[in-house]
C-alpha cells in the first residue's frame, strides 16, 4: 500500500467530516433549508424534525435525555455558557469556582474573566501523571463553591481525569459539576448519569462532524440546572442559547454521534493497538524518550512524547510531511512552552521537545510505521548536532548547569 503524504496525525485538533455525515447534511443546505424556529409551514417543521432527531442521537451517545441537549456554535461557547451561566444564576448562593491548571483555555480564560468580576477561582494542580488529587478537590470545596469544572480528557496529553469520583464528590457536597468532554465523547464510553455530570461540553468537529457546531448537556433532573444565557435574542434552546439553529451542522453532528456510538468499541480498540505500535517502534529506535502523562488513564488514540535533547520546532521541521502538534511555541516572543506540560513538572527543556500524536478513523499501520521511522531518523540526526546530548553523554547533569542567559 502506498502512503499518501502529508500524513494527518493531529486528530485532537480536528477531524475530517465522515462522508456518511456529509451525505445526510447536504439536503439541509439546499432543499430542506427551513428555519427550525418557523412554526407555521412545512419548511420549518422539516428542519425542526431534523434537529430533534439529531438531538436524540447526541443524547443517546452520552446517556442523556434529548431535552438536555443545548446546541451551540462549538465547545468554546459551551464552556463559556456553562461557567458564566452558572456563575450568574447561582451568584446569591456563592462565588467560588474550582477548576484545574491543565484545562483548555476556553475554561481557564472564562474563569479568569469571572475573577475580574469578583468571583474566586481555585486552580487545582496536577500530579506528574496529569491527574488531579481528589483530596485536594475535596479540601477546596467551601460553602461558597457553586461549580466544579474539570475536563474529561486533556487535549494535549490525553489524560483522563477521574470524572466519576469527581461527580460523586460534587453530588455529595451539593456543588454543580461541569466537564469539558470534547476529546472524550465519541471516543470512549461517556454516560452523564454514571459519571454524575451536571453539564458537559461537546463538539462535532472532534468526532467526524462539521466545524461550527457543538452542544452543552444541561441536566434537567436531580438537580435541575439553571443557566443564565450569555447570548440574548429569540429565546431558542429553551432560552439558554438564542440564535437560529445551524440545521445542516446539527444534522451532521447527530449522524456523527450515531456513528461514534455504533463504532466506538471497535474503533477505540483499533486505535489503541495503533497507538501502542507507534509507541513501541519509537521506544525501540530511540533512548531517552518520555511519555507525558499517565499511560493508564489515557485516551486510546493519544500519544504525547518528549524527545530529550532535541528542540520541538526543529523536530517538526524534519517531519514536515507529517501533521502533528508540538508543545513548543518558539515562534512566539515569549518562548513559552506548553502550560500543560509545565504543569506536569516536566522541565521546560522536555516541554520544548514534545510532540502530540493524535490518531483517528483513517490512521493506518503504514502511516504509523512511516512516522516512527522518520522520527527515529530525524531525532538521531538532531541529537548528533545537539550540544545537550553531547554534554549528557559526557555525564554532565544538565539540570545543575549554569546557563548564560540574558
Amino acid at each position: 500500500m502506498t502512503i499518501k503524504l502529508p500524513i494527518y496525525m493531529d486528530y485532537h485538533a480536528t477531524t475530517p467530516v465522515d462522508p456518511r455525515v456529509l451525505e445526510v447534511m447536504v439536503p439541509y443546505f439546499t432543499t430542506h433549508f427551513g428555519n427550525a424556529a418557523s412554526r407555521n409551514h412545512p419548511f420549518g417543521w422539516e428542519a425542526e424534525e431534523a434537529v430533534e432527531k439529531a438531538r436524540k442521537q447526541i443524547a443517546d451517545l452520552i446517556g442523556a435525555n434529548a431535552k438536555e441537549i443545548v446546541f451551540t456554535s462549538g465547545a468554546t461557547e459551551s464552556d463559556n455558557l456553562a461557567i458564566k451561566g452558572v456563575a450568574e444564576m447561582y451568584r446569591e448562593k456563592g462565588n467560588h469556582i474550582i477548576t484545574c491548571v491543565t484545562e483548555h483555555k476556553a475554561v481557564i480564560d472564562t474563569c479568569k474573566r469571572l475573577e475580574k468580576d469578583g468571583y474566586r477561582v481555585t486552580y487545582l494542580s496536577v500530579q506528574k501523571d496529569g491527574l488531579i488529587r481528589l483530596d485536594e478537590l475535596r479540601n477546596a470545596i467551601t460553602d461558597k463553591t457553586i461549580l466544579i469544572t474539570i475536563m474529561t480528557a486533556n487535549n494535549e496529553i490525553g489524560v483522563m481525569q477521574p470524572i466519576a469520583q469527581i461527580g460523586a464528590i460534587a453530588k455529595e457536597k451539593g456543588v454543580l459539576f461541569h466537564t469539558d468532554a470534547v476529546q472524550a465523547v465519541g471516543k470512549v464510553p461517556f454516560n452523564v448519569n454514571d459519571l454524575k455530570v451536571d453539564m458537559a461540553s461537546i463538539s462535532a468537529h472532534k468526532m467526524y462532524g462539521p466545524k461550527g457546531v457543538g452542544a452543552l448537556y444541561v441536566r434537567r433532573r436531580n438537580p435541575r440546572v439553571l443557566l443564565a444565557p450569555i447570548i440574548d435574542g429569540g429565546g431558542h434552546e429553551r432560552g439558554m442559547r438564542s440564535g437560529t439553529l445551524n440545521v445542516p451542522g446539527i444534522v451532521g453532528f447527530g449522524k456523527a454521534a450515531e456513528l461514534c456510538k455504533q463504532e466506538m468499541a471497535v474503533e477505540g480498540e483499533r486505535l489503541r493497538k495503533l497507538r501502542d505500535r507507534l509507541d513501541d517502534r519509537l521506544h525501540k529506535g530511540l533512548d531517552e524518550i518520555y511519555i507525558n502523562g499517565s499511560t493508564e488513564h489515557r485516551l486510546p488514540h493519544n500519544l504525547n512524547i518528549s524527545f530529550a535533547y532535541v528542540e520541538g520546532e526543529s523536530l517538526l521541521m524534519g517531519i514536515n510531511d507529517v501533521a502533528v502538534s508540538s508543545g513548543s511555541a518558539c515562534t512566539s516572543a515569549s518562548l513559552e512552552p506548553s502550560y500543560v506540560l509545565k504543569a506536569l513538572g516536566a522541565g521546560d527543556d522536555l516541554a520544548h521537545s514534545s510532540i502530540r500524536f493524535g490518531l483517528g478513523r483513517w490512521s493506518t499501520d503504514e502511516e504509523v510505521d512511516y512516522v516512527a521511522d522518520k522520527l527515529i531518523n530525524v531525532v538521531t540526526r538532531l541529537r548528533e548536532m545537539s550540544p545537550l546530548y553531547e554534554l549528557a553523554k559526557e555525564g554532565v547533569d544538565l539540570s545543575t548547569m549554569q546557563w548564560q542567559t540574558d
Partner: protein
Amino acid sequence: MAYSSKVIDHYENPRNVGSMPKTDPNVGTGLVGAPECGDVMKLQVKVNPETGVIDDAKFKTFGCGSAIASSSLATEWLKGKTVDEALAIKNTDIVTELSLPPVKIHCSVLAEDAIKAAITDYKKKQQATAGKSVEERAPQPTV
C-alpha cells in the same frame, strides 16, 4: 512557519557540525543560551597561533531550524577570518543572509553571542599560557 530556502538548506545540510577538544589551547569554546529557552549553541574556533587566523570552526545547536542555520552559517563565515575580523560579524548580517523573520532574530543574536564567547575563551587561554611562560613556577590560574 515558512522558512527561507537558505534556512532549509542549512538545516538539511548543516556545515561543520562537530566538536574539537575543549582543552586544546588553540581552541576557543562558546556555549550560550539555555534549554528552558529552547536554544543552546556551542560554537568552537581553532586559531592558528602563528597567523591569528581561524583555521577551523565547529558547532552543535539545540534549537529551531533558524538557530541551527544561524550557527551553521556562522561557522562558514568564521573560517579564514582573523580573530578581530570574526568579532566584527554582526547578528544583522546573519538575519539578512538567511532572511530571518522578526520572531527569529533572537537566533542570530545567539549566534553572535556564541562567536564572541568562543573568541573570549580563546583569548583567555592565550593569556593564561602567556602568563605561564613568564612566571613558570607561579600557581596555575583557575580557568
